[in-house]
């Protein structure tokens, strides 16, 4: 856009100088308007990115995360392995089971303990339920970002189904602190299985309605199809993960590639699309939710009827010196922990690698050259959670 303009401008400039007229050259910067999107903007979250617009086109984008940095990694070094659980789930409370899942896996490797089989199943159930909660919240915000108020209210309402289930399971609405090294905190309550099946069956019917009102809406398709193309090569080079990667035609899911706990016993498909546009990035999480329902049903089926759910640990467990790296598939992609231990009861170093921070790297690449009206639908389709990225 700008190049064409500046070329034609220079051509005109040459013509006018030939005539002997004096010309004041308009600087390219004069045409641009600098807009600050966030941190107090309805379309940003706890995050800021600066854009420059030339008319309706975005010509420059500079993401500026870090508004909610809390130093989670440093805080880990001053607490023991168990004390770390409650504060580690704060960066993404809507997906709190998944963010503590890979931490627990890594610590278990360091401490050399194994989770009982029933505990592994309960972990996986809680993880899938929490994935639904997160994705519904994400979808609600995606709806309101596109001006679709019904799509804000419906997922936000149906999210309560899974929150009810998780409350029955863990005792808290969003901050569960449920996964701990050695298993899960408590066994499932009575009647949970029937309640869970009932809710999941109802939710599958609701998913059809979501598809009818939102994904099959011609106006929604007009807005998102062929917008913000992230090709397969670009997606791999930029290092995006999760639904963003799968929407670019790469069938990559940590649950399938490196199955952890009981996921190798579960039969499910990796949902991916080859259109590489914003629509695909909005649709893949929806397909994931549908697949998650199948997974929950299988997990409830295969779960052992009774048994231990947690391996008893010392009150202040210590492992051998060493390091471990574990990752799980969270709502936003691969979420991994790298933990180094020096043999004491506290970790020597904890490094959290989150999907959000990887996905936001694609934002300038996608925004530059697109229209101002496409900004929310490209930005939020990247499945970015600002608080998690800042850690």
């Amino acid at each position: 856009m700008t190049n064409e303009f500046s070329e034609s401008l220079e051509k005109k400039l040459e013509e006018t100088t030939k005539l002997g007229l004096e010309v004041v050259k308009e600087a390219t910067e004069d045409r641009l308007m600098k807009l600050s999107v966030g941190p107090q903007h309805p379309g940003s979250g706890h995050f800021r990115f600066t854009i420059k617009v030339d008319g309706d086109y975005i010509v420059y984008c500079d993401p500026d995360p870090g508004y909610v940095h809390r130093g989670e990694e440093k805080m880990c070094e001053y607490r023991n392995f168990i004390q770390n659980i409650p504060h580690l789930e704060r960066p993404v409370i809507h997906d709190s089971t998944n963010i503590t899942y890979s931490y627990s896996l890594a610590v278990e490797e360091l401490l050399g303990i194994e989770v009982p089989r029933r505990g592994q199943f309960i972990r996986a159930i809680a993880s899938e339920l929490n994935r639904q909660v997160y994705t519904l919240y994400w979808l609600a915000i995606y709806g309101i970002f596109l001006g679709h108020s019904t799509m804000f209210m419906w997922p936000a309402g149906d999210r309560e189904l899974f929150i009810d289930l998780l409350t029955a399971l863990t005792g808290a609405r969003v901050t569960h602190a449920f996964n701990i090294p050695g298993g899960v905190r408590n066994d499932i309550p009575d009647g949970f299985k029937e309640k869970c099946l009932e809710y999941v069956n109802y939710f599958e019917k609701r998913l059809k309605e979501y598809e009818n009102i939102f994904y099959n809406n011609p106006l929604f398709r007009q807005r998102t199809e062929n917008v913000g193309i992230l090709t397969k090569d670009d997606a791999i080079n930029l290092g995006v993960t999760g639904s963003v990667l799968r929407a670019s035609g790469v069938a990559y899911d940590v649950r399938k590639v490196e199955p952890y706990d009981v996921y190798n016993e579960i039969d499910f498909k990796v949902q991916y699309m080859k259109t590489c546009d914003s629509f695909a990035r909005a649709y893949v999480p929806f397909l994931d939710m549908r697949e998650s329902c199948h997974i929950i049903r299988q997990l409830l089926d295969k779960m052992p009827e009774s048994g231990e759910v947690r391996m008893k640990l010392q009150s202040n467990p210590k492992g051998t010196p060493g390091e471990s790296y574990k990752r799980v598939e969270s709502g936003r992609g691969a979420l991994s922990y790298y933990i180094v231990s020096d043999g004491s009861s506290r970790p020597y170093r904890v490094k959290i690698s989150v999907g959000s921070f990887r996905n936001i790297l694609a934002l300038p690449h996608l925004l530059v050259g697109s229209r101002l009206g496409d900004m929310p639908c490209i930005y939020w389709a990247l499945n970015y959670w600002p608080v998690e990225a800042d850690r």
Partner: protein
Amino acid sequence: MATAPKDFRFGNFVGSLVWLIFWIIVIVSLVGLPLIFIIFFYIPLPYSNGEVITPYLFLSMIVDPTRTAPIIKFIIHTDFFRAAVFPGFAFAAMIAATTIYVERKFLAKMQLRTGPLYAGKIEGILQLIADGFKLISKEIIAPSGADKPIFWTTPIIFVATAAALTVLIPVAPGWVGADLDVGLLAIFAILGFFPLIALLFSWSCNSKYPFIGGLRALHQMIAFEIPFILSALSIVLLSGSLNLTDIVESQYSFWFFIIAPLSAFVFYISSLAELERVPFDLPEAESEIVAGWLTETSGMIYGLIQLGTYLKLYVLAALFVILFLGGWMGPQIFPQEIIPGYTGEKIYNATVINGIFWFTIKTFGMIMLILLPRGINPRIRIDILLHTGWYKLIVLAFINMFIVLAMIYGGVITPGGLQ
């Protein structure tokens, strides 16, 4: 689903109303009436028809219909009453207020919510009044560097322009504030002011997001003005008049919707765009440009602009009814007389009441249709919007216009009915 607070008792509600009336009577008789008599002691009493109107006579006039009827008739036939109260501003504002309440409840039911519930005890009917008081009591913040005179006056001009439109709408036979021969043209002329006001306001704010919103409003209204006028043109061809009363009266045998459905569709879509409603709410797109050209509004400035917007909504719904759905035409359901054997001056007119009834019913139906897309559609992008306006809607409006012209020249219809 809960529709009233848990401890709601209808008896208590009625009881509180009775107590309210009791205290009003007590206060009026103890304080109000003595005050009035004191005032009348000092000022000379007015004459009417050769008799002094004493307070006693005045009270008897209120009760005696033969005396009050001429006065009421005189008042309701003044131009001021027509502009300010009945077919004009107050009537439109009442409909606008009802619309806001209905919209909130309607949208809430659609989204599996309850909507306003507590203000006014029954289904939150007083929510709007509460919101109004809240807006009045809020501080109005003018941005530093704003062009203050324009910033303060444009909201008032916005409401005044919207109120000017309501005067041109005929509600019943003979009931219109200004019966112009170019009524339709006048409405389009006044509608043309709105993008200017939006642009002026957004420029005066000295802020970036309002400025983008104002430019978007301008683009959008220009793109949709032409299909808007073209869709109304086929009705002008059919009725042979620009006078809105004539247009309604020429639909006595059939509605123009039957002959011009495409025009009606174009008119409906264009009015959505004129009103900046979903899916055409680009000038107020929240996630892109905060609140568009309303970003810097606060307190009653916001309230005034909302009032103007809802007045505009009423006017465009009413215009659709007048052009396509036969205005006040409908079966006579009201009796010719309400007091049998009454021979004095008559205020009640069965035809007029019937006209008002049908007009209001149809207008509300149309308003609901305009509110509906808000629940089911996302916002569209500006290039798709401009493409829709300039390419698709203009073509559709032209197609219907040519159909109408062919029918007129082919002798199938004449202005006013089938041949």
